[in-house]
């Protein structure tokens, strides 16, 4: 019983960390320019493939490669924003236009990966090998690295949003765009910053998880779907809410998997989400339209 509990806790926190990295990026983008970024999953998996490609081509140390891969994911985000999203921001139908542009970007990225790397499953080496046992629960060092890195990054991001000039500007834009303009905040360059941060976080999630799970060019879809669930659950646009929601959903998933059965985990989460949206339509932490970031 105690072993099962520990197992559920460990994998729940691990899930939650990855969901947190993925979902906080989605929520930042939604909060600032109201775009559902359908390319998020493709950027996630691109991060893992860039690391894989660099490792097989250059054989540099794993940590260096991982940092470069996160940078690569951020660069992909930058290109998507500059080439696809910025040109349509002034467009009257930009909600659906940006949705389709992001979907197009995700298809291009996945096809490019398929062309370069093929469709077989790949895996990255862990940053730290091995692990230890607590009772019957095997905790890998890599799992702890993922948790530690995610918690540190999410913490740094919330500090960034609270004290830095750019961070405050991002929150200001998400709360009232016209008023943000009146503060002298340049809107479009701030969107670019948001997209780059969000893509870096997605790439980081891909790189970290790439050594725990196998990945294929289409492997970004499920994490993106879960991140969307987390984002809606936490109240769209609220970063703090999203981080809490990530861990709640991660833990719920693993507890259902351990105590009810693995096949119930995902369906259980969706059922719970539907119930919660009936009770709190703006999400667990959402306070309505006004509440942002």
């Amino acid at each position: 019983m105690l072993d099962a509990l520990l197992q559920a806790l460990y994998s729940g926190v691990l899930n939650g960390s990855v969901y947190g990295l993925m979902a906080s990026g989605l929520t930042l983008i939604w909060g600032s320019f109201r775009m559902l970024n359908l390319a998020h999953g493709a950027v996630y998996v691109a991060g893992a493939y860039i690391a894989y490609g660099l490792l097989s081509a250059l054989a540099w140390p794993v940590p260096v490669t991982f940092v470069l891969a996160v940078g690569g994911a951020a660069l992909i985000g930058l290109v998507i924003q500059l080439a696809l999203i910025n040109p349509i921001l002034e467009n009257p139908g930009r909600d659906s236009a940006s949705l389709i542009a992001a979907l197009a970007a995700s298809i291009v990225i996945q096809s490019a990966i398929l062309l370069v790397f093929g469709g077989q499953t790949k895996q990255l080496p862990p940053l730290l090998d091995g692990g230890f046992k607590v009772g019957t629960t095997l905790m890998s060092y890599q799992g702890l690295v993922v948790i530690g890195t995610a918690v540190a990054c999410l913490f740094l991001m919330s500090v960034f949003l609270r004290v830095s000039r750019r961070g405050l500007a991002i929150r200001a834009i998400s709360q009232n765009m016209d008023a943000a303009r009146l503060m002298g905040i340049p809107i479009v360059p701030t969107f670019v910053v948001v997209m780059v941060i969000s893509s870096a976080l997605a790439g980081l999630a891909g790189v970290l998880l790439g050594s725990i799970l196998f990945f294929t060019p289409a492997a970004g879809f499920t994490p993106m779907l879960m991140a969307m669930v987390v984002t809606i659950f936490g109240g769209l646009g609220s970063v703090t809410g999203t981080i809490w929601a990530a861990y709640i959903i991660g833990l719920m998933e693993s507890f259902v998997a351990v105590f009810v059965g693995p096949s119930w985990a995902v369906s259980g989460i969706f059922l719970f989400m539907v119930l919660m949206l009936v009770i709190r339509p703006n999400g667990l932490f959402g306070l309505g339209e006004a509440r942002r970031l």
Partner: protein
Amino acid sequence: MLKVEDLEAGYGGSQVLHSLSLRVGDGETVVVLAPNGHGKTTLLRAISGLIRPRAGRVEFDAMDLTMVPTEQIVAAGVVHIPQGDLPFPEMTVLENLLIGAYRSDAWRARSERLERVFELFPLLANRQRHLARSLSGGERRMLALGRGLMSTARLLMIDEPSLGLSPVVIEQVYAAIHAIKRAGLSILLVDENAEHVDGLADRMYLLEAGVLVREGAADVLLRDQALLATYLG
């Protein structure tokens, strides 16, 4: 300092401002007086670049600001404090003030600016950690003014600061604007109540249906009861 010439602006199919010209001198407090719905807010939005003027020219210190993006207008030193509710409800008082100093030149001097604002509005100093949405109406208006002062503004454009406030609070808000004036900033204030601006305004314009109908020294226009009754009702 600020020179507006033949400005035309509106929304969609309706034109709100018709060939409107005004100027604000260095250190001057100018009030545009009109009842609601005559184009006061539109005038400020057109000057600050939130809406695009259809014709005419906006000039500040001989710099053409007519079709310039808002952030560059702010950079030039023209800061608009909009009317109504506080813009960033989910940020603390302190964060709201800091974001007022977003421009990098203002940001570097943010601690001195913060001190100056807290000196003017001691009330805000005690509420630094509170979320803006938890403030009362009067406190929010003070915060909006304080946030304007955090910027490198040389001209503050204030949109109807008394809207929806009780008489006691209104008095405090105008006292604060007096303090801003004494600090040497130029002010362009739009208002619908002549009594509020008595003693504050140097020069005044009367606006009717998007057209400036009278201009003059404030103490002359404000003594002309018949005129005020005609335009403000």
